[in-house]
């Protein structure tokens, strides 16, 4: 069996792991990032893409509020390409708790968070979609961030500085002796091939999976799994982030994301981070609640839903998951007898850089590396890995730089064959079980109104043309891609999306008989434990 050595092994390519790779690389520390699925497969991909001003936490968690404020300012400076600096509003409607409204400005001030009162009429001029029943509005510095571009840009810089990454590589066991992890046994889940990784330091940045990874070294972390579902609208409903001005609850935020808006969220305790998916009941309850703030949400068209699992580190007996700190946890397992092992989990997208900094500080102290963290001052270079996740880039590039014989494979988002080729070429060594899925993650493919119904078969054809797919494997990948999209698509099927879904089934089953033939790849079939747990009262 092959043994790979590295100074630092980072487990988990969410935004924290990506940030760690960059952080260590900038300090000259060689690191290897491994990921059991793909970049941002967990909570880093399953969230609003909100750049928190901190105002959401002023009442419940002042420390988190301050961190958000500070980190927001840093990210605006170092990674403007990933940020849409929209600004945000906190609004209350008739029936909301007026005491909470009254306390809000002073709570913001106490955390140093800029907050400006607007009269409801002015707020509705700024955002006409807001309800007529508005009773209060405050402007804050919320923004939107593209979490995929952010992770890919962090990884890209790390790779450029000599670090490395492997996708589809799951840590399956750890050898611990003499108070150290001596090696980590990993398995490539696409090929079954196993490798040993020997590292001076192992950093567990696996988010909601942190408890499972810690358990490989015999350590115990109490993690609560809180699933949140979100829904994407077809059009951008507001220019700014809109928050409901009330104690944190379901359906209290709408975040613009390029040409769409993202509405959420829920908070449901689940027993496992695997296999979570949004449900019809959740989408109904989100809309039933949020339409009081933005009535248009009852009539607007939705294009998909998705769910993420927040890792909440338990600090003792807790009631509502929202009462548990959204702040992050950095655990030095040396205290429990494993000297070269640390865990960084919890936290928020907005504070990923700070989390990476603190974890890298601890790792460097153990390694005897004195180089300081540079991630708060060095500009994050815009990479070619991340650029195709940006809404609107496809059409622009098609107009500006198409070559004579290029063709558009994804018509909803105007993604051309040339772009898809460049994504596949760049994915290179990251190539894995479903290239179609990987293309979907790295571009707007499958994110438009057809939800992959037409572009899926077309890109599959192109993968065959390139020789990237052979025998019936391309059809299996198409089915995997379809089932993955179906998770998000099936909860929002009424009105026009239902027509779209019917057309897709007419194509896939009515015309091509794809319900027969090779089954979807089981590699991507996460356990349904979470779903089962959720349905229990």
């Amino acid at each position, binding site marked *: 069996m092959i043994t790979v050595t590295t100074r630092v092994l980072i487990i988990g390519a969410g935004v924290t792991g990506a940030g760690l790779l960059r952080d260590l690389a900038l300090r000259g520390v060689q690191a290897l990032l491994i990921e059991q699925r793909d970049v941002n497969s967990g909570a880093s991909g399953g969230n609003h893409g909100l750049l928190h001003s901190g105002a959401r936490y002023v009442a419940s968690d002042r420390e988190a509020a301050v961190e958000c404020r500070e980190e927001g300012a840093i990210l605006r400076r170092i990674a403007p390409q990933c940020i849409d600096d929209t600004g945000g509003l906190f609004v209350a409607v008739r029936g909301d708790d007026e005491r909470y409204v009254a306390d809000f400005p002073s709570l913001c001030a106490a955390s140093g968070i800029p907050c400006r009162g607007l009269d409801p009429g002015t707020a509705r001029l700024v955002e006409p979609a807001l309800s007529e029943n508005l009773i209060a509005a405050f402007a804050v510095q919320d923004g939107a961030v593209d979490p995929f571009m952010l992770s890919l840009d962090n990884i890209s810089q790390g790779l450029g500085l000599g670090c490395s990454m492997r996708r589809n590589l799951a840590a399956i066991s750890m050898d611990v002796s003499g108070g150290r992890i001596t090696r980590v046994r990993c398995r490539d889940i696409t090929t079954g091939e196993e490798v040993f990784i020997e590292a001076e330091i192992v950093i567990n940045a696996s988010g909601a999976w942190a408890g499972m990874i810690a358990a490989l070294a015999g350590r115990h972390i109490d993690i609560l799994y809180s699933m949140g579902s979100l829904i994407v609208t077809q059009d951008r409903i507001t220019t700014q982030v809109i928050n409901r001005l009330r104690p944190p609850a379901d359906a209290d935020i709408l975040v613009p994301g390029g040409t769409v808006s993202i509405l959420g969220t829920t908070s449901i305790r689940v027993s496992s981070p695997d296999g979570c998916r949004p449900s019809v009941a959740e989408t109904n309850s989100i809309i039933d609640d949020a339409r009081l703030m933005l009535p248009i949400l009852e009539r607007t068209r939705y294009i998909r839903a998705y769910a993420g699992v927040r890792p909440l580190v338990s600090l003792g007996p807790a009631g509502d998951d929202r009462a548990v700190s959204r702040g992050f946890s950095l655990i030095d397992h040396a205290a429990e007898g494993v000297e070269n092992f640390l865990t960084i989990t919890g936290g928020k997208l907005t504070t990923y850089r700070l989390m990476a900094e603190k974890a890298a500080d601890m790792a460097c102290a153990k390694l005897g590396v004195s180089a300081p963290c540079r991630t708060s001052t060095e500009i994050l270079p815009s990479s070619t890995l991340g650029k195709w996740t940006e809404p609107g880039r496809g059409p622009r590039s098609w107009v500006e730089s198409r070559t004579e014989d290029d063709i558009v494979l994804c018509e909803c988002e105007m993604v051309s064959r040339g772009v898809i080729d460049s994504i596949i070429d760049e994915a290179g060594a990251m190539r894995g079980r479903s290239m179609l899925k990987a293309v979907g993650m790295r571009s707007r493919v499958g994110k438009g109104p057809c939800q992959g119904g037409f572009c899926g078969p077309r890109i599959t054809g192109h993968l065959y*043309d390139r020789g990237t797919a052979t025998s019936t494997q391309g059809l299996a990948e198409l089915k995997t891609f379809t089932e993955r999209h179906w998770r998000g698509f*099936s909860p929002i*099927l009424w009105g026009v999306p239902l027509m779209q879904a019917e057309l897709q*089934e*007419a194509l896939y089953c009515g*015309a091509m008989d*794809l319900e027969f033939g090779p089954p979807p790849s089981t590699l991507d079939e996460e356990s349904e434990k979470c779903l089962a747990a959720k349905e229990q009262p």
Partner: protein
Amino acid sequence: MKTYDVMVIGSGFAGMAAALFAANRGLSVVQTGATGGIDFSTGFIDLLAVHPIAEQKVWEDPFAALAALRRDLPAHPYCRVSDDEISLALQEFTNFLGQHGLCYRGRDKKNTLALTSAGTLKPTYLLPCTLWNGVEAREKKANTLIVDFHGLKGLSARQIAEVRKDWPNLKTARINFPGMGGELYPEHMAWSLADPARRAELAEMVAPLAVEAQYVGFPAILGMTDTSIVLRHMEELLGRPVFEIPTLPPSIAGPRLRAAFDRGLPGLGVRTCTQKLVTRAESSEAGFHFTAGSGSTSVDISARSAILASGRFFGKGLKADRHHIHEAIFDLPVTQPENRGRWHRPAFFDPQGHEINQAGLETDAGLRPLGADGKPFHPRLHAAGAILAHQDWMRMKCGAGLAIATAYKAVASL
């Protein structure tokens, strides 16, 4: 204002068939409906190939499958039509298409496996004749060349060859389409092949690649209204049998069907209000008053009877809000799952199919949809095609057959 004998609402397979059958019986017919749905047709006429769907049992003999289905599913709309009626309906329908340039072919009481754009094989009952040599080539596993084109997205010959490893003598080639570059569309290519000189150019490019091939397959682009002429000419030029493979919908199959009806139905006296949906409907004992379309181009129509062939969601015959499914024109009761949580299954490809696909209208034996009181909503309102409840045409492979057969029955019951 003229009062028509029958108003046909819908212009998919069921609507086209209903208009044809009613006109052939001497009735005055007016037809409305957007033609969007038929643009996505594969051109195949499925009768029945899978039953029970949960077992994914595939039948070679569709009439044996029908017998089993009628035994197992007494509410299925196929229980309202006899085998004889089905055969007569298909015959009348394909005769009409044949007269207008679209020849169909199949085997007596046997389904045929047809090659799809994905490279999969689909059991169907009647196929456009231009596909038939492909069926023979595959069955014989003959030396065959499939040609595809730079810039045409709906078909990858290499994909077909990869998926069909059971057909080792299948070779592929990608060429430029003569006289066109960039992104190509089947309809443009098909029209351009109306010119025999263009066909000769194409054949000249293909001939050197096809030296060892016994058959040559193309994406479905061989002509628009003159497919048999184009096909025969290509066969002469290449000196071997030629066939088409359907491309990913929207393909040429839909426009060819539409063109055949556009040519044939007016000659039978059918008045068509194309691209217009019914926006208002009133019924009385005497019959129906409709408004089709909206604004200045809207049309008022009176008819003694009506056939509702408006399709499902994509055809806009059914519509759904966040909680319920409604029938779009008369607000007829729709049999449906209890709540939206039950409309779809967690897996798209679940072999059982999705419950929502069995939703639709209940009817009496004469295909008259039932009102809220469980009795026919109107003595002269009939329904046909996919809007009927208790069938899943996509999984049972019965779309066009069910549409044509129920249209036949609805017209017979007028």
